[in-house]
């Protein structure tokens, strides 16, 4: 039986707890009374995935069965989530591959000739052929990629974008032309966390900068409480308006999937167990892993982590009308990730792991670490933040100023030039965003290489804007001091030092909450 998530109160019986910090982890002894929020255990996976896919496609929600929507001579486009989901990447076969193969089988049976597959990567980097193959599978890759029918979405290819219209609030809705002009757009989603899916799929994944700028900005993010709760997120409100407009022009068949919490492969089982339940074997595995990581050269350590593939299990699949599907999807995500927590605390502790959505096969640079900690993890709440307004956030990450030249060229300039001027999201948005968003060199790299769009580091900074607005102190344990200072934060060597530094903000005996993540969880703060 799957045990629910719960809140541990650290006492004299509590062993040191695992805290992730980049490409490694540490054992941390927390002060007595610290609340530790543990995610629910992994839900049982759907036993017959192919049968579940067939059931979803043949009996969709508020839509006709997929086979009845397929006919010869039609234009069919299949869009799918890119490499930023799930995290870590899923062990083959990826769930998207199984769904796309099922959809293509039905399309072939119906005699559909005009089919294209598009990765909905928005302003993310183009995926490599190997990454595309991993997601769609060898059969689909071999059938479509050589003919240019399996592509990455290009948000700067203006000939292939279509301005569909304006929402009632004047927001531009501009998406991939092929998708917009298809008779049927099938979207295949992996809903790893609550912010994914719904109208965030098509109106954002296939959009251009012109459309994205309406919700990917500091003001919207500060007002999204949180962006993991689409009913309270201004980002999602905007996306929903866009999605409803699109629905008037386009037939979208949304397929959403949810995964369980089997994040780490069996050799890292101990990272998913509650520490006091570690067997001798788990303890030995942890000790061995820590010694091996300490000994391994940087490249090997990087390889060890980034070659990890998750044995995720499918917990649900729903297809049909976007909003009807997403309602079921969110219920499944909550079933796996929601933990009830009573009240806020003065200090929130977060361990930032090696991987986020934007550094798959890459390096988590300090801006991405900030986005991961103060963006995704801080916002992993429903109701109210885990930390009170004016409190402190303590994060664990080395914060080395390492940048991937191939994937993150604009991040380097953002770090060196923009953050040196200001760290205020509103200020940097107003003064510098346009310059980066329209820079021809960044656009060239985005379109022809594997670089994130020039504006992407700004979005990462906006992602953290709500947290920066909410708390008064941000301290990185084990972080590089100069990097932390550049980001506008402080660094400490140990948790004790960080608490000492935060005492001017939260007093000398603050209440502390530690979000034990990953596996993923959402704190339902009452």
């Amino acid at each position: 039986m799957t045990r629910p998530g719960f809140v541990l109160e650290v006492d004299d019986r509590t062993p040191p707890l695992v805290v992730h910090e980049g490409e490694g982890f540490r054992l941390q002894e927390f002060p007595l009374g610290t609340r530790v929020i543990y995610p629910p255990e992994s839900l049982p996976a759907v036993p017959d995935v192919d049968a579940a896919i067939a059931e979803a496609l043949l009996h969709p929600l508020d839509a006709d069965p997929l086979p009845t929507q397929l006919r010869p001579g039609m234009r069919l486009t299949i869009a799918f989530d890119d490499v930023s989901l799930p995290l870590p990447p899923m062990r083959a076969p990826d769930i998207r591959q199984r769904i796309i193969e099922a959809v293509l089988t039905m399309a072939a049976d119906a005699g559909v000739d005009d089919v294209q597959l598009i990765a909905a990567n928005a302003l993310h980097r183009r995926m490599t052929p190997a990454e595309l193959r991993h997601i769609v599978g060898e059969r689909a890759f071999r059938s479509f990629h050589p003919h240019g029918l399996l592509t990455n979405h290009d948000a700067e290819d203006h000939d292939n974008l279509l301005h569909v219209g304006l929402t009632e609030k004047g927001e531009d809705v501009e998406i991939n032309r092929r998708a917009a002009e298809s008779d049927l757009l099938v979207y295949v989603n992996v809903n790893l966390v609550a912010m994914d899916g719904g109208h965030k799929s098509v109106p954002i994944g296939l959009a251009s900068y012109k459309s994205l700028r309406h919700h990917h900005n500091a003001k919207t993010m500060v007002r999204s409480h949180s962006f993991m709760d689409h009913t309270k997120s201004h980002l999602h409100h905007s996306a929903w308006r866009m999605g409803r407009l699109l629905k008037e022009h386009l037939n979208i068949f949304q397929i959403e999937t949810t995964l369980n919490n089997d994040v780490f492969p069996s050799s890292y089982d101990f990272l998913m167990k509650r520490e006091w339940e570690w067997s001798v074997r788990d303890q030995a595995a942890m000790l061995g892993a820590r010694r091996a990581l300490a000994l391994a050269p940087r490249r090997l350590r990087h390889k060890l982590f980034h070659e990890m593939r998750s044995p995720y299990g499918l917990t649900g699949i729903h297809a049909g009308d976007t909003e009807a599907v997403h309602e079921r999807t969110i219920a499944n995500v909550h079933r796996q990730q929601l933990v009830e927590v009573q009240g806020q605390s003065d200090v929130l502790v977060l361990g930032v792991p090696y991987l986020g959505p934007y550094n798959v096969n890459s390096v988590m640079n300090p801006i991405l670490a900030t986005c991961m900690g103060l963006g995704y993890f801080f916002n992993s709440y429903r109701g109210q933040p885990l930390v009170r307004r004016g409190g402190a956030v303590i994060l664990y990450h080395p914060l080395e100023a390492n940048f991937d030249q191939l994937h993150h060229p604009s991040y380097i300039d953002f770090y060196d030039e923009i953050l040196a001027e200001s760290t205020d999201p509103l200020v940097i948005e107003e003064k510098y965003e346009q310059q980066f968003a329209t820079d021809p060199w960044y656009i060239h790299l985005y379109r022809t290489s594997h670089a994130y769009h020039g504006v992407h580091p700004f979005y990462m900074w906006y992602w953290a804007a709500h947290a920066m607005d909410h708390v008064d102190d941000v301290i990185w344990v084990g972080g590089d001091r100069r990097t932390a200072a550049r980001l506008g934060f402080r660094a400490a060597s140990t948790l004790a030092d960080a608490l000492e530094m935060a005492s001017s903000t939260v007093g000398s005996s603050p209440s502390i909450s530690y979000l034990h993540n990953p596996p993923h969880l959402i704190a339902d703060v009452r």
Partner: protein
Amino acid sequence: MATLPTTWLRDGVADVRIVARGWRWGRRPVVPRSAEPFVPPSQKPVFRTDWARRRPARAAREIAQKAGLEPLFRSQVRTRVEGLDVLTDLRGPVIFVANHASHLDTPLILLSLPDAWRRRTAVAAAADYFFDTWWRAVGSAVVFNTFPIDRRGGSLATTPGEVLAEGWSLVIFPEGTRSRDGWAGRFQLGAAWLATEHDVPVVPIAHRGTFAAMPRGQGWPARGRQPLTVRFGPPLRPGVDESPRDFAPRIRDAVAALLDEERTTWWDARRRAADGTTPDASGPAVAPWRRVWEQAAPPATPRADSAPARQAWRR
């Protein structure tokens, strides 16, 4: 300046120390209090103990108890046993029911019994504690003739009723766990239910001193051969229409009367029992430290009320 191998080794040793302390190497693992409601029900395989009541195991146990356990036990504690005459007119099996304050209770009771009774007595032991690993289960079954009872209501290979039906007497600690302050806790109904169900007498036992000698958390008796006392009471039989719920308080009262007798005299204890003023076995309602303080004092030494032994040589 420390080299890489030195730092690596030093950090490794530090890690091992942290883990050894945090995960209590050499001691039983514990669960943080707030996590206790989330401990999954034990899924351990059923451990059979019928082999431990067969002839080869009985022979091994005789050697283990007489050649190993008893000399060791007597080298660590001094004992005084009273009231064994109650067994004279009894034919087994019976249920021995005692208060529970220490791991010393079981060897104290077994080694206090006459050999004929000891050889036909089995001990009910918590499945989640004594049968959680194969080596602990085998060890306790061989040495103490234990069989598992599930404190959480799971299924077991052998029930206490079956052991009784085979003619074995049982030692049961109806509190279910060792006392945290040395005083008796609530008696569960198991022993009373078995007695009524199988129509066997209950022999109440009260002992004192084991909490002072080796309380919870200690793995070996305190130095200086601490004194222990054990007192057997007259057997109790359930009435014709007496339910386990009515019989259980009678057993607890009998143990309380024996504890009173231990502290005072048989006569005073009898008079108080007749008046219904026997001090409650759960102890006085005073500050926790005072409760522990009183129980942490060893009982009167076995020789205290008799003439001092003549010393053949000076110590």
